[in-house]
């Protein structure tokens, strides 16, 4: 099915472990984004990508790493998870300039113990 999918939907890990959240979209959208959602903060941008091999920091990038070797994939890695990274993570995509709409994945709930 066309769309944007995230995996895993739920993940529990321990402090210090590496975690990768996957994101795949089938629309060939040029722009992809990672947001985290926390109560009282809304959605905050972690990283975004304008195209394959082009990524840039958002508002809260510390502790996260992204890559985009293919247009359709945009994984987010927490290299050494901390409790403050417990959150719901959303991947999203957009066709870019002029299209004006952001399409979201279903979210990944990450708990760091």
């Amino acid at each position: 099915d066309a769309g944007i999918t995230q995996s895993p939907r739920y993940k529990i890990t321990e402090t210090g472990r590496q975690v990768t959240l996957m994101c795949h979209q089938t629309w060939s959208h040029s722009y992809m984004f990672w947001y985290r959602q926390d109560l009282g903060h809304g959605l905050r941008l972690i990283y975004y990508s304008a195209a394959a091999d082009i990524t840039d920091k958002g508002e809260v990038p510390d502790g996260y790493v992204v890559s985009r070797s293919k247009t359709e994939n945009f994984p987010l890695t927490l290299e050494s998870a901390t409790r403050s990274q417990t959150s719901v993570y959303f991947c999203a995509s957009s066709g870019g300039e002029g299209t004006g709409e952001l399409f979201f994945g279903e979210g990944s709930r990450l708990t760091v113990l």
Partner: protein
Amino acid sequence: AQTVTQSQPEMSVQEAETVTLSCTYDTSESDYYLFWYKQPPSRQMILVIRQEAYKQQNATENRFSVNFQKAAKSFSLKISDSQLGDAAMYFCAYSLFGNQFYFGTGTSLTVIP
């Protein structure tokens, strides 16, 4: 940096009544996009309505309409004939070119039967 402010953390409405959710934003640009997204308990982010700043006419989608006041930088969402399924978190968002999106902190809407 662009900012989006939702000053009502929580709102409630009686079923079949009308409710208005407030949003203000800060920008020096003249052309941009504004959005309202709905997040029900399922966590999925759903686009409710979109407004392009160059369009004078307020956007309408069935029971949902906006009051776009460009000079005041205000973008409120009116939900008419509220239904139980409208209960959700609502996020206001701003985008300049469709490649950067800024979100408010959200308004939690409760619909009272």
